[in-house]
């Protein structure tokens, strides 16, 4: 008899029992994981720590994989923004640093500048309410990507919507419109915003440029309408000054512009750019005549 046959065989564990134990243990750990997840989600919005705040340091430590790290930080910024926004008591303390790190790691990640600026500039609770930080982010984007004109557009919108600085917005839109590949409407935007900011002269110059440069008939018609509205607005301003002068001299308001012609203050009845005479409104101010096609709302 061989020795192996003489020895008692070790008792085997039933395989069915092993499988059942394995499945039960897997199910049990899933329940535990689920419970742990619920506790985490139930606690107040967990603060996300930022272990390394220097983008430059992270760039050095990335060993050439800074693009990948930038994508991770951008995704982290998006997730952070979304989580805070849905938390009910949003705080966006880390949004600026996360975006700074992202754009330091990858200065050409345009989306991080564009969306990041929107996240930063929007008023709470929708955003961080930090337009100054948004401006800084976009300016850095422009320095890193000087050819990308849309960053100028975003910068202009922050000035326009969030800071209500129309003159600055117009300057930025105009600068952006001069970048290679910029759409013609950047110029129209600059012109319109300049008018809104009260800078009618700049607006007129820009609309005149658009009128001369465009080959699109719709844009040309729009530019012409704006130029006519601007001219009418300037005429009305001038007429108001003459009406005030008349009232001081005559001791009463002018009933119509014919009074000004009769008094010699005007050589003839003034016409708007469409050829329809201006009139005096009941409040004593000059206004467009009935049937005039000029739309002054274009510049207000």
């Amino acid at each position: 008899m061989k020795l192996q046959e003489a020895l008692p065989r070790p008792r085997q564990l039933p395989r069915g029992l092993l499988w059942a134990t394995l499945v039960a243990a897997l199910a049990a750990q899933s329940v535990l994981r689920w419970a742990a997840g619920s506790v985490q989600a139930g606690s107040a919005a967990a603060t996300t720590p930022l272990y390394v705040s220097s983008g430059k340091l992270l760039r050095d430590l990335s060993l050439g994989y800074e693009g990948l790290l930038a994508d991770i930080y951008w995704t982290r910024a998006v997730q952070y923004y979304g989580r805070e926004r849905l938390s009910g008591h949003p705080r966006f303390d880390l949004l600026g640093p996360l975006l700074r790190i992202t754009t330091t790691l990858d200065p050409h990640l345009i989306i991080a500048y564009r969306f990041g600026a929107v996240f930063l500039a929007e008023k709470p609770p929708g955003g961080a309410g930090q337009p100054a930080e948004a401006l800084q982010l976009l300016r850095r984007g422009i320095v890193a990507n000087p050819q990308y004109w849309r960053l100028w557009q975003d910068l202009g919108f922050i000035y326009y919507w969030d800071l209500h600085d129309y003159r600055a917005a117009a300057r930025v839109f105009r600068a952006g419109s001069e970048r290679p590949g910029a759409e013609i409407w950047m110029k129209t935007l600059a012109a319109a915003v300049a008018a809104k900011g009260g800078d009618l002269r700049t607006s007129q110059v820009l609309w005149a440029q658009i009128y001369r440069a465009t080959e699109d008939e719709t844009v040309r018609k729009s530019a012409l309408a704006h130029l006519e509205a601007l001219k009418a607005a300037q005429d009305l301003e001038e007429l108001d000054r003459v009406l005030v002068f008349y009232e001081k001299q005559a001791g009463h308001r002018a009933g119509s512009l014919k009074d000004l012609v009769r008094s010699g203050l005007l050589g003839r009845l003034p016409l708007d750019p469409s050829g329809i005479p201006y009139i005096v409104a009941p409040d004593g101010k000059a206004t467009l005549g009935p049937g005039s096609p000029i739309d002054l709302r274009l510049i207000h």
Partner: protein
Amino acid sequence: MIHRILSIARHTFKQSVRDKVLYNLIVFAFLLIGASILFGKISVDIQRIILVNLGLSAISIFGLLIAIFIGVSLVWREIDRRTLYNILSKPVARWEFVLGKYLGLLLTLLVNTAIMAAGFYLALFYQDRRFQAQDVASLEAIYFILLELALIVGVALLFSCISSLTLSAVLTFCIFIIGNLLADIRWFGSETHSTLVSAITTFLYYLLPNFSLFNVIGSAAHGDRIPGHLLISRSLYALLYAAILVSASILIFEERELQ
């Protein structure tokens, strides 16, 4: 002579292919490339950038791991298993053995990278259902990854001729890290205002392989092509430095006493 070198290279390649670690790494790389498609979906508007960054980084990282872990065992394994004595007892010169080993692993890396690159381009195609002109930039980046790997294999081979397995792996990885930070090291040296430290860091800057020259994954993700003069100059740099590393390995191995 060439026949003998190619025989050793072929043998090294077969040996590497038989190595199960190799397959695991490739599977992991494919998983990572696949994951990049999913990862892109949870971010905003940069799916393609993420795919390129993650895909090329996966090719680079797994290539790096293969280069280090197989590279350091190239000579060591033959000594440890005493198969080296069989080889050297035949009419094979030591330098032929070292060169054959280097070329064999380079071939392994070339094949691995080609397989991973095919997977990467498949993922790119899956995402947009078409290729774009800017995808050529990724091909250039893969070429630069290969140049970098050629240098890392050289470093691993050099340490493999000098040191033990673990120490060789650690040292090769250290050189990789330092090689990526050379510009900073030189800058730190100049900031110390010490002539000696500055001289040492400048010396290291010119002595050690500059791996940061091959980091173009980030620009490839934005579709930026590499200018022709950089393609040529960096290829020449890699070729020259690889020749230095292999020559140094041969010199050391020629002097080594085998017991």
